[in-house]
């Protein structure tokens, strides 16, 4: 019983022209900073009476960035939760068509987020909406939704290109 228990090595992911390391490092930095801020919060609160609560706004923003950036690298690795059972039961030809169609649907989803997210950020910029916590203009947070959705969209396009190149 000397075996180590560990998660099976996650698939290293396909060869991509733009290295996945970019998103991986960014996501790792986000979660690391999140842990540091939260820990600092606890320490500061127990040692002093100073409330660190204004960091909440920033933490929450970092979490959104981590989600989108991490989703981008996971997209290339095919790691998002999905049900492949039925598609795998299909014979090769139809299965290939369904895979292409499914990938196209994911493309549309994130393209939609790019366009609509950009409109949301622009609206907030136009109407000079400010955040309740730090009083910063909110568009500097929300503008990352379309930008990072663009990154995810790019990764889906990569999946699509590899599917088309690989044929069935």
């Amino acid at each position, binding site marked *: *019983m000397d075996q180590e228990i560990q998660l099976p090595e996650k698939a290293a992911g396909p060869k991509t022209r733009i290295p996945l390391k970019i998103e991986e490092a960014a996501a*790792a930095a986000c979660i690391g900073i999140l842990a540091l801020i939260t820990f600092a919060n*606890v320490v500061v609160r127990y040692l002093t009476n100073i409330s660190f609560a204004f960091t909440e706004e920033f933490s929450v923003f970092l*979490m959104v960035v981590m989600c989108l950036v991490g989703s981008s690298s996971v997209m290339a690795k095919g790691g998002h*939760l999905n*049900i492949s059972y039925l598609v795998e039961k299909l014979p090769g030809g139809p299965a290939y068509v369904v895979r292409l169609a499914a990938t196209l649907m994911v493309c549309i989803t994130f393209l*939609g987020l790019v366009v609509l997210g950009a409109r*949301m950020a622009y609206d907030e910029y136009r109407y000079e909406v400010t955040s309740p916590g730090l009083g910063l203009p909110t568009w500097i947070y929300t503008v990352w939704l379309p930008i990072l959705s663009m990154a995810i969209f790019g990764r889906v396009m990569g999946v699509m290109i590899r599917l088309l190149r690989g044929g069935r």
Partner: protein
Amino acid sequence: MHPAVLLFGLFFLLMFAGVPIAASLGLAGTLVIAVTGLGIMAVPTNVYAGIAKYPLLAVPMFVLAGAIFDRSGVAARLLRFTTAIIGQGRGSLAVITIVVAMIIGGISGSGPACTAAVGGVMLGAMMRAGYPPGFAAAVTAAAGSTDILIPPSVAFIIYSVLVPSATVPALFAAGILPGILACLALSLPALLLSLRYGFGAQAAKQPKPPFWRSFKEAFWALMAPVLILGGMRTGWFTPTEAAVMAVVYGLVVGFLVYRSLTLKDLYQILVESAETSAVILLVVGLASVFAWASSTLGIVDPIAKGLVRLGGGELGVIMIIMLFLVVVGMFLDGISIFLIFLPLFVPIAQGFNWNLVWFGVLMTYNIAMGQFTPPMAVNLMVSCRLSGASMESTIKWDLWLLLSMFFGLVLIVLYPPLVLWVPEVLGFR
């Protein structure tokens, strides 16, 4: 076509075509909002606001803590300690699989991920010891599905975000007894079947690890749940803070006590846990579009009323809900189920004055059962793929495990203190 039919129909169509669940939810929601003219700008607003919630910060923090505990060899020491207690006789590997899944599970909040993690080690060990692949796959799938009951469970955190009156500490505490119950409910048939058919007799000749030494090694790991639950009990920490304390504790144990972690490991841990959390949070974000569409269409109320009007009273309604959850649990993970169906069920539960903590645990227990109910069960698919067993070969064993889990469920439904006693004693409301 009624927009509600379109919404759910599109979602299921996309999902069964292999579109990731997050994208299926987001796209179905977006299209229905666009078609019905409910205000398309609700889409980006809901995605952003759905993720940007402070209580959700507990998710990446617990995932990070879990990854650190995994990598620092804490889990391996727990496994050795479990073996020291249980021994190496017939059926012991099956029981150890279940216990280990309980201990290291719950972190990812996803049954399939836990099945893959536990199965990666235990399936091979079981098959080498002479367990038939179908049996090993069934036990691993069942073990991996029940981990969402054991604190710290990400599924409970999501439930609490959606149902704020059920606090995270209360849910964590409430999950303890049902979690142990599920563990016993699975171990008993696994053990009896092994004894009956003589599975794992070869492994019995190996010596047991010494009890005290393995206890000493596992001591630091055993203290972690005390720290997490104890910290929340005394009101020192919020769930997010308790998670970050677990992170710090895991780092101290990994770097200073066991000296098993390196900085390179740490980077890998950060990447993995950020990506795991991203997968969960993306589902949360895009599911809020779906949930917004379904609540704005006003389909919740008629369905809830219809369910109540079906008759059968309180017990009838709860049986319908449970059956439904087992069925959707066959193909959806717990978190997605909560996000999609809680807005529907919570008003019903409130109508009957059910305790929402009890209801959350009950829902989770049902979802866990669904995750290893053949023929569609996600967890069985994972364990079958890892072990090379066919789905058909698992069914014979799986049904015994399900039957036993079902008795546990009956106990929880008929005797709510089984869920509510621990939070009561600990003073969580």
